[in-house]
């Protein structure tokens, strides 16, 4: 009897850890698999598409409206007014200073005054915003989008045409054809050269002298410095930081574990992926008019004036446009301490097929 009791207690204790799991399965809770969206497709215009669809459903009565859905032929809003319920404007929209808007669908174009605050705007034509615009969610414009100085663009600012930024603007995602930081306009006319299949391979840092043309790509396990006016006709992979000195040019994709610093008048004609920061000095062009590219920055992004970006820039930890005359970029990066590489430095390099 005592043995049987001991065995019973032993069996119960042995089964105890399995009971919660057995009950979990018996109750048939949590039956669905981990959710994978079968229709997910990455799109820089995703936010705008979703809101457009929502507005279409609201205006046709298919979706509930949070508040009152208002449809107007045109809108003229006076200073310090606010409109926080859903609004569709079929004509043009003008707002004065310090107007506050919720979610707005501008079927015509729009002109926003200074210091406006908006939740989200979708527009089917050009939109121009004054200085110090504050966006809490996103802007999506099927036309030109011009943003005034010292603005905050929220999660995303996308334009199917030119997106123009002024100094002092902060952002997270930018999409434009192209994105232009206001100033001198630069046009890329030469087509991207073909990218080679061979790579220079460096175990440590590599400094490429000025005025060189490398027909191979570069894989560098340290920092890579590309001398002034030098060109790399291939893809570049760098484990440290990448510095393109004044006028340097890369024709292929750029994948960097460290930060990327473009010192000025640089061109990159491939996709860019960096695990740290991206600093772009004046006169630089990323991408080309024929090639919409992707620029992913896991860290911060800083753009100087007179910069042009063709494609989609994602700045995971935010980005900003430098103020005119601001020298913090130079101070932050100590650009003056980066010396020009000499010709003898291109020796510690191997070849990889």
């Amino acid at each position, binding site marked *: 009897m005592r043995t049987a009791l001991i065995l019973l207690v032993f069996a119960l204790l042995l089964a105890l*850890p*399995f009971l*919660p*799991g057995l*009950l*979990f*399965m018996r109750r*048939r*809770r*949590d*039956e*669905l*698999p*981990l959710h*994978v*969206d*079968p*229709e*997910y*497709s*990455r*799109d*820089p215009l995703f936010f705008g598409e979703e809101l457009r669809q929502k507005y279409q459903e609201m205006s046709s009565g298919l979706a509930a409206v949070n508040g009152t859905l208002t449809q107007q032929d045109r809108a003229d809003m006076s200073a310090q007014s606010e409109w926080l319920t859903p609004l569709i404007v079929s004509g043009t929209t003008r707002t004065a200073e310090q107007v506050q808007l919720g979610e707005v669908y501008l079927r015509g174009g729009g002109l926003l005054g200074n210091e406006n605050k908006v939740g989200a705007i979708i527009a089917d034509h050009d939109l121009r915003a004054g200085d110090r615009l504050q966006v809490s969610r996103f802007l999506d414009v099927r036309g030109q989008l011009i943003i005034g100085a010292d603005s905050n663009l929220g999660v995303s600012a996308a334009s199917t045409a030119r997106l123009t930024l002024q100094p002092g603007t902060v952002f997270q995602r930018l999409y434009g054809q192209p994105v232009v930081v206001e100033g001198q306009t630069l046009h890329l006319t030469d087509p991207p050269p073909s990218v080679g*299949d061979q*790579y220079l*391979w460096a175990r440590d840092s590599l400094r490429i002298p000025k005025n060189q043309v490398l027909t191979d*790509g570069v*894989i560098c396990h340290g920092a890579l410095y590309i001398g002034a006016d030098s060109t790399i006709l*291939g*893809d*570049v*992979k760098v484990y440290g930081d990448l510095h393109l000195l004044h006028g340097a040019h890369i024709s*292929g*994709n750029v*994948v960097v574990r460290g930060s990327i610093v473009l010192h000025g008048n640089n061109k990159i004609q*491939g*996709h860019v*992926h960096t*695990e740290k920061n991206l600093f772009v000095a004046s006169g630089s062009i990323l991408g080309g008019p*024929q*090639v*919409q*590219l*992707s620029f*992913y920055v*896991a860290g911060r992004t800083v753009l100087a004036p007179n910069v042009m970006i063709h*494609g*989609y820039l*994602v700045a*995971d930890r935010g980005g900003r446009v430098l103020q005119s005359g601001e020298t913090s970029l130079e101070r932050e990066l100590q650009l003056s301490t980066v010396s020009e590489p000499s010709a003898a430095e291109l020796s510690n390099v191997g070849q*990889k*097929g």
Partner: protein
Amino acid sequence: MVLALIFLMQTYVTLVTLVIVVYIVRHLWFTLARVMLKQRPSFQDMWRSADWPRVTIVIPMHNEELVAEHALNAMLNVDYPHERLQVIPINDHSSDATMHILNDFAERHPLITPLHRDGGNRGKPSGLNDALALATGDIIVVFDADYEPPRGLVRMLVQAFTDPEVGAVMGRVVPQNPSKNLLTRLLDLERSGGYQVDQQARHALDLIPQYGGTVGGFRRKVMQGLGGFDPRVLAEDTDLTFRLYAAGWKVAYVNRAECYEEAPEDWGVRYRQLRRWARGHNQVMLRRTWAFLSSPYPTKLQKFDGALLLAVYLQPLLILTSLVCCLLLFMLNALPPGLGLTWAAGTIAYSAVGNLAPFYQIGAANVLDGMGSRLLLLPMTIVAFVFNMFAASEGAWQAIQDLVRNRDAQWEKTVRFKEKV
């Protein structure tokens, strides 16, 4: 003689226990790195509107009439530019309606180019080699026949080749049928631990993420440069991973590139699947370890992690044999104090399924996935541990015999459970 045997068994159990401890520390490191460290970004956040490379999707099929239509419809639905896409379903010696289904799709959709194989070796590596000769894509993306990729998956995978060092890419596999029975529940736990924590940590720590043979891709020219797949190896995915690293290439893991799979619902099917994996993986260990460790390209840490990864499917055989030794030593009253307990604690801590993920790794993965209630199932993994120990041990033993007898392994197809369209 008996004393010498006892000493040998004591030494063996001690060594196996030490090896298990090394694996426990390794997986604890992965788990902590996944939970606490900043994750290295992968390539899924990139986007492009043009200049997509030409891609060939290859789907090996052997008697896949139950799933062929699902798979091909999913391929036609992907948002990759169709003018840059080619789909090659491989009808590999099928005797059911697979051939007719493929031909029917090919007639209606010009981007589908079926490859019918009724001669030569049957099996995935041989089929892939034939498909490579037919492929026009710069990038080859492979799906097993029971996989149905979401619309944006191929783009996400292909973006990884922006990195010129990436020779292959791997996405995440998610079981579609976790609540079917205890086995599918356990496989779901295993997949979570294996991908959400293990693969992601190896990617973040710059170690050896593994190309898994499905929901992944590789550069065609690189594969052709390596001489194609070895038809004698059952685990062509592990084989490719280590050949790539030995040649200076890397494997990228994209955690957000998720794709449903059908997990085996029958213990017999699972036993054969795991036995094949273990046999193939150990074949690779026996063939590729030296080339990998002597390559100048991987770092020391990658070599250490790679060596442990190569030996991972040898562990069940080591555990099983050391368990027998433990029992013999116990009966001979020669089990040193503490050793048996350490062995038991080690194996219990290490006990899990498939990828041999410890319970803390599976737990962390489910919490990260927002599936915390599934932690209640964790003690059940002991069932899978015992089951897997036998299946994987048999596979490891077969791999050793393959080497000794210089024999070729036969490919075993995994049975499908999905109902026909």
